[in-house]
């Protein structure tokens, strides 16, 4: 097959060949944007050789601590470092406040949607989303119908991937409602920066992130089932050391001071979950599971799963244990469901969405399909459903034959495909081969939802290290950056040192009272609207 393949996570990041001039988060209209004023001076003073030295120190640091992700499919070192870039990505407090409100709103809507589709299914009855799209989706688990998880929360931990195209233009690229990873990099990146650049920290007021594990533990405790007596026993369930995110699993368990268990460490007796300890069985109340739904319980899902715990779903449904995230939460982050999230916000919360979706064409609909077929050279086409198939077409990169082949596929099975325009992701200066150059970034904030919604400011910034590349995935040459949310607003004195015009515009944009983000031009946005 001549088509380019990628994982679902890549979808949407493989965008245009020559993207429109991307928004530079540090430089705008000949000046430095306010959040970057101090770091720009700092970089200028230090020079690139010093940065390269720091980069090498960081690598030694990460290798020693053992912050690696495992890649067992290719040759070479099985435990690799995700490249870490020493130049931070900086957001102002105002930018973050606005994002965090949008994130909270989105996560509330996604949870309301989950409670609804496994319950009364009002949104389907109201005709706001096609029934088949939900009920026949691979991510929809019949085992969850009619059951309310402890606390009524499905997505206890979510990661929402955001991209930026301008001073005020943030788009949600993807919701991750199953087991989003990367938070350990967010925390370790900050620790590394504190060790490498203590001076830079004295010159900024950077919102701390290191309390994330405490927030996570509090959140997990807060969803303990009502049957739990006394202090809840929380565990992290991992597939084991060969999982690519194992470092993160052990890191989080360690930081929270709870046991890191594998499936074989747990067993179910009389619908109660226990772990095997040297002092005999010990009851478990809350499981932060980092294994997929289908491997969770061989009795309920895949019978050949050796990673899960037999009888876990029965114990869960009996209300004797809480699972984070709830099984079946994946229906909310399905690619075909994604276009309907803004509609969920309106339907459940009676609010206008603060964060916009990337405009998405659904090939199932005739008007969209015709547009897609006529513009294949400009669009990214992806498989819509489930995560079984990874085929995608990056129009601008594809050959004439590839586009023709894909057009045939779309005509044959239109319901399987969605398409999105290519986006010019924002850039941040990045150290590449000893030189500072612009590279595209995205942002994955983590949202905790227990009795209340908690977030630590910022998230994980991923950066595409290859020139011109929009692929930020670690498996495809992506790296990470520390993400700073500055606590103090830029001072007027500093503002004047930046390019006057650009700054004035930026400042204006930020001080507005949070208007809904403007949609992209030429968009078949929000297919949920008007759907019948």
């Amino acid at each position: 097959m001549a088509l380019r393949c990628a994982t679902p996570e890549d979808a949407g990041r493989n965008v245009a060949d020559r993207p429109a001039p991307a928004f530079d988060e540090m430089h705008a209209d000949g000046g430095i944007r306010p959040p970057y004023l101090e770091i720009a001076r700092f970089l200028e003073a230090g020079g690139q050789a010093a940065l390269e030295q720091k980069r090498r120190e960081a690598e030694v640091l990460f290798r020693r601590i053992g912050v690696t992700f495992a890649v067992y499919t290719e040759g070479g070192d099985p435990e690799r470092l995700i490249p870490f870039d020493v130049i931070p990505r900086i957001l102002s407090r105002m930018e973050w406040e606005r994002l965090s409100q949008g994130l909270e709103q989105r996560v509330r809507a996604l949870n309301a949607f989950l409670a609804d589709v496994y319950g009364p299914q009002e949104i389907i009855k109201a005709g706001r989303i096609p029934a088949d799209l939900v009920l026949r989706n691979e991510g929809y688990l019949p085992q969850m119908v009619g059951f309310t998880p402890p606390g009524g929360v499905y997505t206890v931990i979510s990661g929402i991937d955001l991209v930026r195209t301008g001073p005020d233009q943030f788009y949600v690229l993807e919701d991750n409602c199953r087991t989003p990873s990367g938070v350990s990099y967010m925390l370790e990146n900050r620790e590394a920066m504190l060790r490498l650049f203590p001076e830079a920290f004295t010159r900024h007021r950077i919102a701390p992130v290191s309390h994330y594990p405490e927030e996570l533990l509090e959140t997990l405790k807060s969803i303990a089932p009502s049957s739990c007596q006394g202090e809840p026993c929380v565990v992290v369930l991992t597939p084991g050391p060969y999982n690519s995110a194992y470092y993160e699993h052990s890191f989080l368990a360690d930081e929270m001071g709870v046991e890191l268990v594998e499936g074989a460490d747990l067993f179910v007796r009389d619908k109660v979950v226990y772990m095997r300890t040297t002092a005999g069985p010990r009851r478990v109340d809350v499981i932060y599971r980092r294994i997929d739904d289908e491997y969770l319980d061989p009795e309920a899902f895949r019978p050949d799963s050796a990673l899960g715990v037999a009888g876990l779903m029965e114990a869960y449904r009996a209300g004797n244990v809480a699972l984070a995230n709830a099984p079946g939460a994946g229906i909310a982050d399905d690619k075909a469901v994604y276009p309907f999230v803004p509609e969920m916000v309106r339907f459940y919360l009676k609010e206008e969405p603060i964060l916009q979706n990337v405009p998405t064409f659904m090939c199932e609909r005739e008007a969209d399909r015709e547009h897609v077929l006529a513009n294949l050279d400009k669009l990214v086409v992806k498989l819509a459903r489930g995560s079984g198939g990874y085929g995608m077409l990056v129009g601008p990169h594809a050959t004439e034959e590839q586009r023709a082949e894909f057009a045939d596929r779309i005509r044959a099975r239109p319901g399987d495909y969605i398409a999105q325009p290519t986006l010019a992701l924002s850039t941040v200066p990045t150290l590449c081969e000893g030189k500072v150059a612009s590279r595209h970034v995205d942002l994955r904030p983590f949202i905790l939802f227990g009795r209340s919604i908690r977030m630590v400011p910022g998230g994980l910034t991923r950066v595409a290290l290859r020139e011109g590349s929009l692929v930020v995935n670690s498996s495809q040459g992506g790296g990470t950056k520390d993400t700073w949310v500055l606590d103090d607003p830029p001072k007027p004195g500093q503002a004047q040192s930046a390019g006057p015009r650009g700054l004035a515009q930026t400042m204006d944009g930020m001080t507005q009272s949070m208007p809904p983000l403007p949609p992209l031009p030429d968009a078949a946005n929000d297919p949920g609207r008007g759907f019948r």
Partner: protein
Amino acid sequence: MLSRTADSLFWLGRYSERAGNVARGLGATLRMALLAEPADGAEREWRALMVAAGCEHGFRERHEAAAHEAAIHWLTLDPANPSGIAASVESARRNARSVRTALTVDMWEAINDTWLEFRRLDSGAIKGDRLPGFLDWVKSRTLLFNGAAADTMLRDDAWRFTQLGTILERADNTARLLDSRHGAFAPDVSADAACYAHWQAVLRSVGALRAYQHVYHARLDPRRVAELLLMRTELPRSLLSCYARVERTLQTIANANGGNPGECQRLAGALHAKLRFGRLDSILDGGLHGFLTGIIDENITLGQEIAARYLNGKNA
């Protein structure tokens, strides 16, 4: 503590100790092989060491003669030898990684740095003049790990299970090394130069040549060498010292885990008593080989009973 965590700590202790023990044994054997008079003397030495390390069978399947280079490679860098240094380092690190959170940073770095450096070794690292340096390095890494554990671990079950693995492996090693030269300890043996070399080699392989002089202030003598390795409390690698610690550690673990001591505690007590109250004369008269194989077998059973009681999670 999770049974699996206890299991990994136990084997981490065993494998780390094993790497150091193989290095010590190899150093002593290397000396013997170099000094060996007849042509087949060196080969006998290498075979004896491999028997002691429990990897002679695997070697025989791959090599016809126990040539110097082949034997050294098998015991050091060959990952196919489960009792060799390479596999021990790999297994120690694998176990450490799966219980990363139960270790202190210093312990993890001791193990992880060893593993990282080991992966960078070229095959020349064990050739010729570089071999002694390599063996010293392995020994020092095991000492560093033991020191990191002793100096930084909380005195909780994590410490106890790591200790338990370390000491059990050490007892096994002392018994096997002594057994591999049991011929030199027969009651009717003549004190010729060859036997003298064997006694020296046994002491050297557990790092106790100096210790012997400090305890006895006398020429090497088979009874005393045997006594030192079997039942002197002063020597931390003697079987008595090891089993005293095993029994004490198991008692503390039982107290911390509900009080039921289990079969492993009884076995450890019996082994300890055998060495504490046994008479050296009757052991030597009855045959050192028979006595030591008995100990080695009981040590295996003890390991299985510890697993059944604490490590495999079937104690529900």
